[in-house]
């Protein structure tokens, strides 16, 4: 395997774009990435694309629609869907194609357009499918699962409502400093705690809004990278994981799980992160900042522990001591996170990569992490799949 660098990044703004197709949004992200890499579309030798699951057959097969718009060049296009982990798995596919020596320049692109309100079941109703049953027979929503896991955490570690609010406040402080964030308001704990209770103990401002968005990255063999970008960012390691037997998490999309733990919580993310650490030859102590999946305040509390930054139940104290902001022990979600962008499920992983690359290039503006050398991105993932990247200068 050879070294791989990121030479171009691009994004379409996050928001609600009723008059735009996922192709319209993809092209904006791709063109920004091409410009960033001082590259022509014809230089791209292969493409991995994220599937837009609500988009009928065109959404399930985005590659040809995107190449049609960009101009058909006959390149291989692979389409990938892995829930919240989609865009990072697209990135991993592109990485593997370059690392293996198959192609020198590969584009990773993912776009998503979200339906309004709560997600519900997709596809043909099938009573053998637990994800259908949890809707049909219980009405258990995604934030409902997170709230169930969160209440257990509150019992185990004494997490308070104020900690949940602090997670949102911490993200909003970063979001306010990011010109590309959708929500730039800095929230107070009181404002968060006054928002509507949705899935007790999670309030409206403590769960992700669903939005549209698209992001792209261009990967290149490291030995050729300087030709396209004076500051190529090295892909130190990528990881992808599925769940471990005995993980007691109330797992999104299932209606059954073990009671006694013989594996870590969100073990799919644990597995993905360990794979990335091993590939990169680094540990949590080497990571300068992280973009993690703040789908809810519970995620914000859980993920630093899953990634090994500190022990179980310690994120609350880190929030109390403001250790997750600039100058703290570990800046979390310098982009502002899902809290400041909303979630375009299939595209979110590449938005995280966009932020980490920006920081490593020193383009973080007012939210720049000082001396940023190694950054990490981590996704969540329905039913037990997840993906991680570790990027460095």
């Amino acid at each position, binding site marked *: 395997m050879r070294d791989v660098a990121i030479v171009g990044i691009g994004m379409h703004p996050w928001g609600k774009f009723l008059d735009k197709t996922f192709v319209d949004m993809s092209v904006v992200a791709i063109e920004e990435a091409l410009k960033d890499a001082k590259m022509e579309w014809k230089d791209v030798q292969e493409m991995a694309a994220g599937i837009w699951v609500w988009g009928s057959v065109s959404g399930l097969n985005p590659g040809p629609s995107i190449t049609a718009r960009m101009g058909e060049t006959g390149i291989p296009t692979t389409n990938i869907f892995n829930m919240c982990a989609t865009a990072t798995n697209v990135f991993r596919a592109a990485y593997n194609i370059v690392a293996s020596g198959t192609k020198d320049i590969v584009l990773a692109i993912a776009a998503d357009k979200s339906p309004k309100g709560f997600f*519900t079941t997709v596809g043909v109703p099938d009573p053998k499918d637990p994800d259908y049953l949890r809707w049909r027979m219980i009405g258990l929503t995604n934030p409902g699962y997170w709230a169930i896991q969160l209440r257990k955490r509150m019992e185990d570690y004494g997490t308070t409502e104020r900690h949940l609010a602090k997670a949102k406040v911490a993200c909003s402080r970063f979001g306010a400093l990011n010109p590309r964030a959708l929500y730039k308001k800095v929230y107070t704990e009181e404002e968060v705690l006054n928002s509507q209770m949705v899935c007790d103990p999670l309030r409206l401002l403590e769960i992700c809004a669903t939005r549209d968005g698209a992001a792209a990255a261009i990967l290149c063999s490291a030995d050729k990278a300087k030709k396209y970008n004076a500051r190529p960012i090295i892909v130190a390691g990528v990881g992808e994981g599925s769940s471990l037997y005995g993980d007691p998490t109330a797992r999104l999309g299932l209606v059954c799980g073990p009671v006694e733990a013989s594996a870590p919580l969100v073990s799919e993310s644990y597995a993905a992160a360990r794979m990335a650490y091993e590939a990169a030859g680094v540990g949590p102590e080497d990571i300068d900042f992280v973009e993690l999946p703040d789908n809810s305040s519970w995620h914000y509390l859980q993920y630093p522990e899953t990634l090994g930054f500190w022990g179980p139940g310690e994120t609350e104290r880190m929030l109390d001591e403001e250790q997750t902001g600039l100058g703290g022990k570990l800046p979390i979600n310098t982009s502002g996170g899902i809290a400041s962008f909303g979630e375009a499920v299939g595209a979110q992983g590449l938005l995280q990569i966009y932020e980490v690359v920006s920081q490593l290039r020193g383009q973080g503006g007012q939210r720049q992490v000082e001396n940023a050398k190694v950054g990490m991105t981590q996704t969540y993932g329905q039913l037990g799949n997840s993906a991680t990247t570790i990027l460095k200068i």
Partner: protein
Amino acid sequence: MTEKKEYPGEEGLFTWPSDQPQLIGGRCKVCNTYYFPKSFVRHKPDCKDRSATEDVLLSRKGKLYSYTVQYVPSPPPAVNPDPFVANPIGWVALPEGIAIPGRITGCKLEDIKMHMDVELVVESGGKDREGNDVLIWKWRKI
């Protein structure tokens, strides 16, 4: 066609009609992994025979492992009470070593307590468009 007054939201998930309804799950006889529903079979990674499964009627009684209260109606295909009231949902630990979610019934919201004893009942979760009751499993406080 006979007019339906009430019917299970899906067939084959619990014994019905019954005064003592039970969820129909499954178990691997070799690696002893329990699961629900019976269609979503699970095994240990080192299981020596992934065909050695059997249907199992799961315990009716369990303990509340954790819960949430949803303050907004769930989207279709869920059914909701009309008028909508806050919807408590529990994750209930059974003696088989697995936990199964379901709506909580038989008590006020303020009486829901972690680790409380619950038992399985089959009740209406709401009505369909024709006004028939759609039956779902719930956990009732004992």
